């Protein structure tokens, strides 16, 4: 079975500073990788995804993530955060040879301070 670990439950950061949210996964088969954002009282919104090809993927709102197969990681980064980036971020995997079930990590709360 696959699993996802988000190492930091909370990440406080000052506005305009860079940020990295860490995600590691384990799976015996190939997976697709996703990052979702959840703003307060809203549903999950897809930030970006890795399916194949270039290991550096760019998403919405200036976020990017890099797939590292040897380290089984998919860390999310943004060079300069805004107050509006304050939200919960979830890393997820999906098996590429099965149904569309997503396995999520526990989430990381990004808190951007002025």
């Amino acid at each position, binding site marked *: 079975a696959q699993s996802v670990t988000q190492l930091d439950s909370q990440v406080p950061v000052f506005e305009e500073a860079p940020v990295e949210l860490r995600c590691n996964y384990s799976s015996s088969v190939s997976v697709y990788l996703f990052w979702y954002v959840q703003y307060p009282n809203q*549903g*999950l919104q*897809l930030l970006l995804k890795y399916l194949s090809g270039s290991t550096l993927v760019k998403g919405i709102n200036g976020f990017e993530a890099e797939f590292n197969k040897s380290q089984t990681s998919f860390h999310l980064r943004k060079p300069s955060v805004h107050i509006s980036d304050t939200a919960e971020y979830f890393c997820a995997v999906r098996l590429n040879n099965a149904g*569309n079930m*997503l396995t*999520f990590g*526990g989430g990381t709360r990004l808190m951007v301070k002025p």
Partner: protein
Amino acid sequence: GAGVSQTPSNKVTEKGKYVELRCDPISGHTALYWYRQSLGQGPEFLIYFQGTGAADDSGLPNDRFFAVRPEGSVSTLKIQRTERGDSAVYLCASSLMAATSPNTEAFFGQGTRLTVV
């Protein structure tokens, strides 16, 4: 509507009662998923429908949980004899293409917050 709609947005029920949670997927989406998100945790898969049939119900925690999608559109998640541990946000998502397509994106609703007192 343009997105996935879930009703009610909040539901408070007494322990032992029966509840139904509704999900209206995006029009034309054949795949529909239910997830449960407990406080401070990531969403956990419950069940997946392709059309009218449940293609994967391996995430349902026990036989008190049941879901239907009789016409391949709206889905209802049903919980019998609710327990305090059932308190969570129940999320619904839908996607357009066949489940095994790599470019399938799942769109999530805002969820129903269920509180069992």
